[in-house]
């Protein structure tokens, strides 16, 4: 199959796929194309949503016909090599505090063992990696972040464990998943952040967006207890007027 390709996804959306599976370059193309769409103000687009390998474009058929939209997308796809577009790193970094291990990071030791590291080394490696939010999905505000060093190429569990709490720091497949609501999961929980990333009552209810850069910072239990998340959400208000 030749990528990128465009197919209808029902009668009110088209799907632009950049690959059958996730890879770094596929995901980069996805984010670059999604970002170009967001900047374009193309008439009739209701919303666009990046996934790990594609961009879904929902349109209002009363405003645009899908053929015009597909033609426009094809022209955009032909105009540059989206797999090679360098995403401008103008997004400032979110420094997200993490309480590693303990009751809310029960898989820390086992994950470190799988990675061939001590728990302290794993924490160090995890918190010195600069990650990018690839996309959000599966559950509201749940962020997929990559790419972690190859030590984190550990598999997910084969079965779902008990639900993890919102803010859990989950790892597998060189990615970190940060759920904003409690979810059942096979990902390995190595810690938790006291920073809420989804506040439904806010004007901008989601802290993280695709393309955002993130660094995790180890904190102590005493720091987690008194953590003030206000400045993070204030910054979001300032950056997304």
């Amino acid at each position, binding site marked *: 199959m030749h990528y990128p390709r465009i197919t209808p*996804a029902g009668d009110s959306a088209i799907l632009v796929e950049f690959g*059958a599976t996730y890879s770094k370059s596929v995901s980069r193309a996805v984010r670059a194309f999604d970002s170009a769409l967001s900047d374009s103000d193309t008439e009739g687009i209701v919303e666009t949503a990046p996934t790990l390998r594609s961009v879904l474009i929902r349109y209002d058929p009363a405003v645009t016909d899908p053929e015009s939209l597909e033609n426009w997308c094809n022209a955009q796809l032909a105009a540059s090599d989206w797999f090679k577009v360098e995403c401008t790193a103008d997004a400032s970094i979110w420094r997200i505090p993490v309480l590693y291990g303990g009751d809310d990071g029960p898989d820390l030791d086992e994950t470190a063992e799988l990675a061939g590291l001590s728990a302290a080394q794993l924490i160090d490696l995890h918190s010195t990696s600069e990650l990018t939010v690839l996309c959000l999905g599966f559950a509201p505000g749940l962020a997929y972040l990559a790419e972690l060093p190859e030590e984190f190429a550990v598999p997910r569990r084969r079965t779902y464990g008990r639900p993890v709490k919102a803010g859990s720091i989950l790892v597998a497949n060189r990615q970190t998943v940060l759920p904003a609501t409690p979810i059942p999961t096979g990902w390995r929980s190595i810690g938790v952040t006291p920073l809420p990333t989804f506040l*439904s009552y806010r004007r901008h209810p989601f802290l993280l967006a695709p393309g955002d850069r993130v660094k995790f910072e180890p904190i102590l239990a005493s720091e987690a207890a008194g953590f003030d998340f206000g400045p993070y959400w204030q910054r979001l208000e300032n950056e997304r007027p």
Partner: protein
Amino acid sequence: MSGLEIIRLPPGASIQDYGRPGFRRYGVTEGGAMDRFALAEGQALLANPSHAAALELPLGSAEFRALGDSIAACTGAERLVTVNSENKKLRQTFRLESGDVLKIGAAEHGVYGYLHLPGGIESPVLLNSRSAHEQAELGWKPCVGDRLSAIGGVDAPAGLALAAPDYFSPRVIRCMRGPQSELFCASDLHALGEAEFEVTPARNRVGMRLSSSAGKFSADLGVTLTSDAIVAGDIQVAADGIATVLLMDCQPVGGYPRIATVITADLHRLAQLPTGAKFRLSEVGRTEALAALAELRAEMKALRGRVFQSVREPSALRDLLTYSLVSGVVKGDEQDAD
């Protein structure tokens, strides 16, 4: 004190409007009423704004006590509606006085029913919508003892009615091929159009599992797919070979292949199919799907102009007696009396 106190509710009852587009990039699907046409009917009857929310009642019966005087209307699946044991018609506004007991029976035809109050039912607006979305922990799912309040601001009399729509019990649901249809073998794609499907009891706002006379489907997953975007109507085939139609509260992404997608214009017809109902799928192109959607939207828009005053509503009849019969015929000498 005004509104309705909830005495009994079926499981799964929730507040719904047209949902919340625009948050998919943050992992939230649109959601909204399972039967958008029935929601539009209630809005037309009460002259409610199009963002007004209603109480969605799946299948089972419900009971309420009026805490004040109000107008209300029920739409959607066929049900017995009574106020203090007096029958009320579906798709017809009726009056409730303080203390009245409103009973909405179990669905006899179809699944989802809607209770509408003037101006819509009050509940918190989250992410631009009042729609409850259980997995997303958004919106309000009322419980017994809770109070439903009308937002008000509209003025509809009792006895306003709409004709019954004819979209219940469809024998054919239309679908389109999608990005993953080609992962299925030709015989599966052929069977999709030939098989008789049956709605199983495993159903909710997220999806509807089907059984098929063609047995199981199997996608060729020589290449392991990375999870991809899901849209409402997608017919997903899980590892067990069983087809599930994903509906309004489906997740935004999923890893199982989708063999086809039910067209938007048929989603409410599908959602109203009772458990055990049998139907066939018919494959259509996008042009036909969009023509059907344009027609449905035009029908929904035209509802407000099709509301008529029914003379059978007793409270409307009182008006009739007062203004036409009493003054015009029986009395007949207004000028003399002045």
